């Protein structure tokens, strides 16, 4: 089905209904394979078995950043191309992105506890991800505060674009701030060279996470379209009740 056809919400709903079971099944398969490979992955000579946390930590981090990139494209879709589904996609992606970013933070903190001796260290990477998490929450708060989806969509799109421009600057600043304060003695998460015996399970888990995101995003978009339909029907109902015109 050409992508242009999906611009029509009703057709998108039909597509989502048909695609979702397949996507869910595929996600399950990918997770089964990924987890299986994870079990077989060798321990790191330095970090021992805790390296297993990486198989969920790193995919969540990639997804956390990737979903913001997706929201940025959707924001362009809202502001520039005025695609009718762009802000639906952006709104549906935000909570999922926030959840994966949170997962990245929590697993990072659980990984850091045995390595650093503290649940939280103001490590440059973790801190940047924390700022990303705050920005996700900000966008979600914006969506929640404004009732009219068209208006909220434009505001959220602008915020998303500003965030996309600012995130590299934030990353750079946090790196600089961090090296200023502490010499690079902290053990970096995910070392520079990754052995294939670890890389392959990592890629498998990443594929599983991406498929999971696609399924969740599709379902959330479907919900959002239905929510807007409910909203417009409610407005119609108010208009047909007595005393609507004055």
């Amino acid at each position, binding site marked *: 089905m050409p992508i242009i056809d999906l611009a029509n919400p009703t057709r998108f709903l039909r597509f989502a209904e048909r695609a979702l079971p397949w996507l869910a099944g595929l996600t399950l398969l990918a997770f089964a394979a990924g987890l299986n490979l994870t079990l077989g992955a060798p321990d790191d000579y330095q970090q021992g078995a805790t390296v297993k946390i990486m198989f969920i930590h790193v995919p969540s981090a990639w997804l956390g950043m990737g979903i913001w990139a997706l929201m940025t494209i959707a924001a362009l879709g809202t502001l520039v191309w005025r695609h009718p589904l762009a802000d639906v996609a952006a709104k549906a992606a935000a909570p999922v992105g926030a959840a994966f970013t949170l997962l990245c933070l929590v697993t990072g*903190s659980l990984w850091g506890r045995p390595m650093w001796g*503290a*649940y*939280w*260290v*103001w490590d440059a990477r973790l*801190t940047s991800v*924390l*700022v990303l998490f*705050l920005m996700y*929450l*900000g966008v979600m*708060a914006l*969506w*929640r*505060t*404004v009732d009219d989806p068209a208006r909220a969509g434009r505001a959220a799109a602008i915020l998303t674009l500003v965030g996309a421009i600012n995130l590299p600057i934030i990353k750079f600043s*946090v790196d600089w*701030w*961090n090296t200023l*304060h*502490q010499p690079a003695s902290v053990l970096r998460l995910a070392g520079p060279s990754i052995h294939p015996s670890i890389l392959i399970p990592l890629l498998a888990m990443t594929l599983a996470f991406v498929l999971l995101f696609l399924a969740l995003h599709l379902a959330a978009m479907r919900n959002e379209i239905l929510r807007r339909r409910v909203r417009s029907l409610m407005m119609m109902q108010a208009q047909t009740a007595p005393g609507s015109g004055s």
Partner: protein
Amino acid sequence: MTALAALFVRDVRLAIRVGGGGGIGVLFFLIVVTLMPFAIGPDLALLGRIGPAILWLGALLASLLTLDRLLAMDQEDGSLDLMLTGRSPLELAVAAKALAHWLTTGLPLVIAAPLLGLFLNLDLGSSGAVALTLLAGTPALTFIGLIGAALSVTLRRGGLLLAVLVMPLTVPVLIFGVAASNAALVGPLPFGTPFTILCALTLISIVVGTFAAATALRHGME
């Protein structure tokens, strides 16, 4: 009593349904706590030492900023007028509103505090102690803020004016809140002494705040 219960339920319901309630307060709290290390530096020992102070300042700012809308929204849509024609005393009505406000904005801050303590290198016990002092102290912040909310509504000026009016009044709460947290962390004072004073301050604020706010509303209405 049912009238006050209805008011309480309505305010809680509004806070849950409309964005900008407790969720935003907690988010603000989180951001303030996150910003602190950027200014101070990621020195865990230092952060652990001043952690209770950071948490208390964050909670204070967060609870004051959410107070802005406590009475202003009801004034803008005329609800405040109608409340004056109700049969329950205005003191109890504003107290019910403040209580609902604390439940939806103050309590989430208390719950979030131990979690944010992790960022500041506080162990679970100390975080718990800070949360306990916040539980005892945030009602005082809400009820002191209630005075400011009532004054700013009658003067028809909101936002920063409210914070400026209210912040000096919160000094004692801040002093004893942080003192109690520090006593639990490092001593040398026993935890009980400042904590008892903090509880007393809260009780006084509830009484004074309620009556002052009701008086301000009665005299300021036009």
